[in-house]
């Protein structure tokens, strides 16, 4: 091999050469927007210029053929520019309103659902899973696909009280983040330790430091230095697994799914919120995870039926109260719902306010 090439440290590319010309021209000078139909935004600039955005769902993990199909559609109907959203939806910008309907037609034709705007259920935030990660308890692409199949109509229509942002994650690290509904891995047994491997490959002080409850301590097995886990303390979080692969936390049976509700990032109306545990113990059941999907739909439709306009999932539950949330969804309330982590006191009812 010849002398290696020096990287050009160019950093973040300038977006302006890539941006639709109407956006460039009116950059920072927009006046208002509306949504002529689900999946379509119309933004009007102070100059009077208008741009329509047509939004479609993708599988995120795309083969080049899919990308090229999307490019073909963009070239034909959308001035040759696209952008992707924070949730891996694709947006086509068109200057000419007459192109909107044909564009929608072409997308539908090619199998891309048009929607995800306004008060719909948008694409589920997607992580790596079995496809690529080194620590996953479940798949991400599969969970997302299976769930989005179920929620397809809610992507197409804007019939929720407010936006619904669903997230998923393939281990308890949760690269998928907080969500109105989150479908997350929840391990239920402490890691099994492969002692043979620990002595060989594990940087032991690092993994001991990583445990949030100090459950890991050095030990000797067959005369070799290894680790052991205090199973009484261990909260089965799997934080020891990435730095120390011999701490095998994943298990085909005991790695379960849990559903969380009411995460909210926006500071709109209410302050941002974390999501809260509502159901656990759900089987990690590929390829379609029907048990988890069922719980998600139950919650989603209870919200749809009962929330007031603009109430996000978490705001709705705050108003009706957790006792009624469990009543309306029929989900069991258990001791596991009561927080035990630092600051847990703030999650307790320290008032005489009570609901029957």
């Amino acid at each position, binding site marked *: 091999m010849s002398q290696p090439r020096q990287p050009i440290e160019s950093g973040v590319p300038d977006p302006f050469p890539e941006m639709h010309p109407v956006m460039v021209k009116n950059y920072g000078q927009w006046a208002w927007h509306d949504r002529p139909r689900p999946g379509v935004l119309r933004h009007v600039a102070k100059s009077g210029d208008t741009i329509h955005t047509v939004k479609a769902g993708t599988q995120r993990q795309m083969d080049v053929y899919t990308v090229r199909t999307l490019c073909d559609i963009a070239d034909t109907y959308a001035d040759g520019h696209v952008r992707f959203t924070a949730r891996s939806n694709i947006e086509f910008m068109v200057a000419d309103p007459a192109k909107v309907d044909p564009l929608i037609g072409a997308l539908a034709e090619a199998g891309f659902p048009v929607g995800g705007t306004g008060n719909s259920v948008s694409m589920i935030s997607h992580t790596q899973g079995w496809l690529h990660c080194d620590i996953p308890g479940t798949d991400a692409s599969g969970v997302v696909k299976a769930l989005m199949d179920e929620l397809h109509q809610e992507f197409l229509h804007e019939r929720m009280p407010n936006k619904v942002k669903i997230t998923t994650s393939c281990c*308890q690290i*949760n690269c998928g983040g907080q969500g109105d509904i989150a479908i*997350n891995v*929840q391990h*239920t*047994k*402490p890691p099994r330790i492969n002692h043979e491997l620990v002595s060989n490959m594990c940087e032991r002080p690092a993994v001991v430091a990583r445990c*949030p*409850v100090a459950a890991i301590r050095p030990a000797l097995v067959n005369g070799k230095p290894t680790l052991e886990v205090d199973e009484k303390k*261990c*909260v*089965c*979080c799997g934080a020891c697994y990435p730095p120390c692969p011999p701490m095998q936390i994943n298990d085909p049976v*005991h790695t*379960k799914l*849990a559903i969380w509700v*009411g995460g909210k990032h926006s500071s709109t109306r209410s302050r941002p919120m*974390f*999501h*809260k*545990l*509502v159901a*656990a*113990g759900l089987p990690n059941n590929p390829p379609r995870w029907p048990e988890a999907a069922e719980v998600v739909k139950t919650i989603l439709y209870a919200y749809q039926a009962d929330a007031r306009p603009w109430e996000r999932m978490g705001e709705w*539950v*705050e*108003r*009706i*109260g*957790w*006792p*009624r*949330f*469990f009543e309306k969804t*029929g989900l*069991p*309330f*258990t*001791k*596991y*719902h*009561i*927080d*035990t*982590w630092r600051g*847990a*006191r*703030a*999650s*307790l*009812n*320290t*008032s*005489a*306010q*009570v*609901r*029957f």
Partner: protein
Amino acid sequence: MPSTPLLDQLEDGPWPSFVTGLKRLATSEDKPYADMMKSLLGQLEHSYQTRTGYWKGGTVGVFGYGAGVIPRFSEVADKYPESKEFHTLRIQPPAGMHYRTETLRKLCDVWEEHGSGLIAFHGQSGDIMFQGTSTEQVQPAFDAFNEMGFDLGGAGAGIRTSMSCVGSARCEQSCYDEQRALRTIINGTLDDMHRPSLPYKFKFKFSGCANDCVNAIHRSDMAIIGTWRDDIKIDQEGIKAYLAQHGRQWMIDQVVTLCPTNAVSLKDDDTLTVDNHSCVRCMHCINVLTKALSPGDERGASILVGGKRTLKIGDLMGIMVVPFMRLESDEDFAALLDLATRMVDFFAENALDHERIGEMIERIGLVNFLEGLGLEIDPNMIAHPRTNSYVRTDGWEAEAEKWTQRKGPQAAE
């Protein structure tokens, strides 16, 4: 009489002056306490001058009891010798703090004979505090009060004197018989008051509704707060009368928009409705519209545990541990006493030295506490479920089953 230039300034102004009272006692030359009170005024003026307190504790009590007297010995007895001992007797008042004047006069008489003539109605925990007597007079004073039907209150690491709101005696918001509940619990746990041997103090407080007129949530280890399970009672004629008097805007501003859960609606036909499933029994609408609204018929109390002041982990409020318990029949009151007793026992067995029950719960976790006492889990105990995934959930199915067992029949109601 000592010169008291600073204290004298507290005789000015419209509010009744304790200094004037102290002086009255100090100048009651015919009374046994006059010299003691002169001395006391001197010491107090000295405190005002030096911005320093001069009392220290000690051990003084009455025969048969381990607590209830607060001993005070002066550190400046050389200067103010007559008040070198200035102990306080804590005496439990009748529940609700009702008195015939006859009773008050008798109490005064006893305290003129055996004490300083200075009485506080009442201490923050609810005792009548007979403030200031010598070691020698403690026992005779107590004997006299005791003969009248009064008993010592709490101090030290035991059950403390309790307090209930005026409640049923006068207040239409009252959801249970506060005085009965107070007497049931306190008189049922007297041994732990009079011979204190708990890890630390333990207070009960009784409020008839969520207005919490005795500050029970913040200031008691076990708060018993009245509530109801069925629907708010609405007298629509009463509502119309309010509307006629104040108008719709008033009703909207003062009631409808202030309901914390938006459970109150004013209809176009001038009726008022409440979504009782959303209502959190906060009392606001009932407070404002007392002539038209009242608590439902299925009355009782919620129990909250663990309120206290700052030491050592910071202030704590009580945590809801029993959302509803009926308080009507004899059995209901027996069940209340049973719960209180088990609570105190659990505290006695599990708390560390000088640890209040709220601190203990903080340390062992609410779930362990509930399980220890056999209390059933309920979403009313939380403001919201856990936000943190660090928990071992392998018992999920068994726990879920418990809930389904309990709620199954109810769901069919």
